[in-house]
């Protein structure tokens, strides 16, 4: 029996990493929000690796936090290990990565979601969308509950027509044997959406008691763990290590002997997997000259004995997985608790989305996360918060929010997806960002807190702290510009201790800080100390001063990029009517429907001549309008 189950401003389908951010952000912005999930016990479940962050991804978590999202806060409460990666490299590529305690992460996330006013969580399987006059108006569940809404966000991850593959074993399923969603997929197809089929995989989990860690190398966390969230004040110091071991020729022999049993190598046509997330059989086949591959053993939590065998993602039969593990030092007697498997699922071709993540076909309908062809919890969460913000903004009559490629990795991610699409599960890499130096871990707050505050996602208290940090950093830079350091004996002693050539002439503190050998600490010994500065502020000053030249260069590039982004393409443009555009360009432009000339220029197949013509055409339109 169909029944009317209520009206909401925003409905989020799914409560994974995209869903929780979307629901939380929409609710915080003041939209009455409903979150529907297949299983309330599985909110923010991590079906694959027990870690959050890493290069690029860790910066996304910081960006989510700067916008007022929750991933950073929750992982800060639930990690078993925290590491700052790339500390020997430049500031632009340093990133945090945490090993998560999976059950605690889920528990903490559930707590946040359940206690958020404006946000209702209910268990239910959505079968179809309500679309009236081409606009999305709500959802219907399998239990015939009809929820009406102003906007709907689909964040169904890998659940849509999911199929688990392990050797010759295949069955319809969501990840980790959860229920599969079939009807929603069909409904999206009926509504005219183009779906594609992607694949991902996960390695076996083994019981920690059966691992001989003495044969492996220890991988501890940082002595002074840092936090993802700008609001976190307490660190977890009691950390657990991970362990490193390697495959060897015997492992590779087992795999080679059994390749025919692999679900992915048995010859059947399968969904597209990602190159950066290969199964162990992929690695052996594609790099058969490598004598060994790394295997990291990662605990899944404090109160569980399950250990994630990172590096051994596979779709080989369970029996082969057993055999394979026996060849790996430390895992000879390991008992598998859950076998590895591959999973195939439906994804929405992301060029069907506006940069707000609203679908072009059906206003009011948004999609975010793995359904859009990405992989990774952080990529999902980054899209989730933007979809939540934009759905709420639309309902509340506010301007849409689109991050550009110079503002955030989230902007790079979404722009790539909606402009270029993807033919494999998309992962963020630092090399995808043109302005990596501007998109740093340390300055995520400087980039995005203002925006989060304006959206109502950042508290007054936090905003006040942020503004103080900003002004202190500026004041300190000014102070360093004024202070002169003279070549005294004391100063040159410090210079020599730092391995720098002694001073001969007086120099401004600001310029001295630019010397690669010298840190802010060194400079501080030569001048009157500024006791007001926190470690983060000192770090910020040092980075801004040291890399000033490079940052300036990047900013100039950004300026050029933004000029093209500012050239908006009118919504009603008729590409067929534009004289001189190449046929391929017309097709691509009609499909992607870029919002600006800048976005158009990033579409493959649209060449510089097409862009020139587009510019002229748009200008002509403006002239025509003025003339009228």
């Amino acid at each position: 029996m169909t029944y009317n189950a209520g009206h909401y401003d925003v409905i989020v389908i799914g409560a994974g990493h995209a869903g929780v951010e979307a629901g939380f952000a929409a609710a915080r912005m003041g939209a009455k929000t409903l979150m529907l999930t297949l299983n309330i016990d599985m909110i923010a479940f991590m079906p694959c690796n027990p870690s959050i962050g890493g290069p690029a991804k860790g910066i996304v978590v910081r960006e989510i936090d700067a916008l007022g999202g929750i991933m950073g806060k929750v992982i800060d409460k639930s990690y078993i290990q925290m590491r700052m990666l790339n500390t020997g490299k430049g500031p632009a590529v340093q990133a945090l990565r945490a090993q998560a305690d999976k059950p605690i992460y889920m528990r903490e996330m559930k707590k946040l979601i359940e206690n958020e006013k404006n946000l209702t969580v209910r268990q239910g399987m959505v079968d179809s969308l309500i679309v009236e006059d081409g606009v999305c108006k709500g959802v219907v569940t399998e239990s015939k509950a009809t929820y009406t809404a102003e906007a709907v966000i689909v964040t169904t991850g890998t659940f849509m027509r999911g199929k688990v593959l392990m050797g010759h074993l295949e069955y319809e399923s969501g990840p980790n044997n959860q229920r599969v969603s079939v009807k929603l997929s069909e409904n999206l197809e009926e509504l005219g959406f183009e779906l594609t089929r992607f694949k991902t995989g996960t390695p076996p989990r083994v019981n920690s008691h059966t691992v001989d860690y003495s044969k492996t190398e220890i991988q501890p966390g940082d002595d002074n763990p840092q936090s993802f969230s700008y609001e976190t004040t307490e660190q977890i110091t009691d950390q657990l290590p991970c362990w490193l071991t390697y495959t060897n020729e015997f492992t590779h022999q087992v795999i080679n002997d059994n390749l025919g049993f692999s679900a992915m190598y048995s010859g059947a046509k399968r969904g597209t997997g990602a190159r950066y997330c290969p199964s162990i059989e992929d690695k052996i086949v594609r790099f058969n000259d490598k004598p060994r591959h790394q295997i990291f053993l990662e605990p899944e939590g404090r109160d569980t004995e399950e250990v994630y065998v990172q590096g051994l993602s596979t779709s080989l039969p369970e029996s082969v997985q057993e055999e394979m593990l026996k060849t790996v030092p430390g895992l000879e007697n390991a008992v598998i608790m859950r076998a590895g498997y591959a999973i195939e699922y439906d994804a929405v071709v992301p060029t069907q989305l506006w940069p707000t993540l609203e679908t072009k076909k059906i206003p009011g309908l948004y999609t975010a996360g793995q359904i859009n062809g990405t992989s990774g919890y952080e990529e999902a969460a980054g899209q989730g918060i933007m979809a939540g913000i934009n759905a709420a903004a639309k309902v509340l009559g506010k301007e849409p929010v689109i991050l550009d490629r110079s503002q955030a990795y989230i902007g790079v991610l979404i722009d790539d997806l909606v402009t270029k699409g993807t033919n494999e599960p998309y992962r963020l890499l630092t090399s995808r960002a043109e302005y990596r130096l501007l998109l740093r871990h340390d300055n995520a707050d400087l980039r995005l807190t203002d925006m989060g505050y304006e959206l109502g996602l950042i508290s007054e208290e936090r905003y006040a702290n942020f503004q103080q940090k900003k002004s202190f950093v500026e004041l300190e830079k000014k102070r360093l510009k004024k202070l002169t350091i003279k070549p005294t004996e004391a100063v040159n002693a410090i210079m020599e201790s730092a391995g720098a050539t002694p001073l001969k002439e007086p120099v401004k503190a600001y310029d001295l800080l630019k010397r690669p050998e010298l840190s802010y600490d060194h400079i501080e010994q030569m001048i009157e100390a500024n006791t007001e500065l926190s470690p983060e502020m000192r770090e910020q000053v040092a980075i801004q001063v040291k890399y000033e030249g490079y940052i300036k260069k990047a900013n100039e590039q950004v300026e050029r990029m933004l000029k093209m982004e500012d050239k908006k393409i009118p919504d009603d443009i008729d590409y067929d009517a534009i004289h001189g555009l190449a046929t391929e360009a017309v097709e691509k432009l009609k499909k992607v429907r870029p919002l600006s000339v800048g976005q158009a220029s990033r579409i493959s197949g649209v060449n510089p001549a097409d862009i020139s013509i587009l510019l002229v055409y748009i200008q002509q339109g403006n002239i025509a309008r003025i003339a009228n």
Partner: protein
Amino acid sequence: METDTITAISTPIGEGAIAIVRLSGPEAVSMTARIFKGKNLNQVDSHTIHYGKLIDPKTSEIAEEVMVSVMRAPKTFTREDVVEINCHGGMVAVNRVLELILSIGARLAEPGEFTKRAFLNGRIDLSQAEAVMDLIRAKTDRAMSVALKQMDGRLSGLIGKLRQELIETVAHVEVNIDYPEYDDVEEMSHEMMRTKTKEVHKKIDELLSVAKQGKILREGLATAIIGRPNVGKSSLMNTLVQENKAIVTDVPGTTRDIIEEYVNVRGVPLRLVDTAGIRETEDIVERIGVERSRQVLKESDLILFVLNNNDVLTDEDFKLFEAVSGLEYIVIINKTDLEQKLDMDRVKELVGDRPLVTTSLIEEEGVDELEQAIADTFFAGEIETGDLTYVSNARHIQLLQQASLALEDAMEGIDLGMPMDIVQIDVTRTWEFLGEIIGDTASDSLIDQLFSQFCLGK
């Protein structure tokens, strides 16, 4: 309003006694003033013309004698400040001026960009919009095809190789960043990066220095005129010299009668070599034998092979065909005013795909066709010069210079001890500039490189 200043040669290259290099943009006047010796152009009235000399800022030497028109916005073609530099016609002089302008910071205009600016600044009215689009399309396509055709296969191969080296280096740095725990590849050190950047920088500079002394740009295509005695080699030589404005060179002792003669045929500068030999109507094959003459001919970029319409083919002619086979040559059948004794079928068979022109140099017939054949051969990119002189395309030179500068920035970063991911920014820029030369800027190729070079994943 656009913010940068663009420049281009705005007269057909190589035609006419005077050529014009035009600049448009906010710095058009100040830039020109910086290299102009004469009145201070920054202070002259709008729409005035001034005599003076252009000075090479690097060497402080006088580069060209010019007339400069200064026209300030908005009453100009583009509605921006516009400067027109009138200089001697011919490829050498005008390219020299263009290079000077580029060296002080102007950007080479895209095809049709002056017109585009004129349009965008409201100078051209609505009804002309479609024409503008046509123009942009046509000019871009043509420029692209000419640019690609003009590029020597070896040049693009070489640039492709340099780019591959760079992208492997970049991928190495990227894998260190994105997969910090991946232990299969050592951390890119400053030393490794220094070696790599120096190596590539050296190669780019070699290309540039070749381009700078580029035979085509500076000296023209080495062109040999061959044929049996009395077929009309001298007439051909004289015709080419008289018909075309000889290029004035400052090579000491250049006179009519010694080794080389410079002429400009439809924008193609030719350096007619071994003219003395021709004038003495000595046959080089006879003189030095087929093998050696082939060596001599090989050093030519273009061979004009003259046959006599009024005579049958002889052994010497066959020898000459043998000597030029596989080289760039145009066959000229001269003396069509006299009775045809030449076996045309046989000649056509021997000539094959090569261009064939019939002339009567005495009657001045067929000269146009010959000049067209020379221009076609050049612009079709058929001529392969002895070295990489095809870098003479101003756009290529500018991009190579930018690539070189970007690498210098990278090397400076290395010297300063900047972190590798910062140094890599400039290495990537170098890779992008080189990519623009061969029309390949797809950024996805880095990701592809990353995953084909290294075995990565969870």
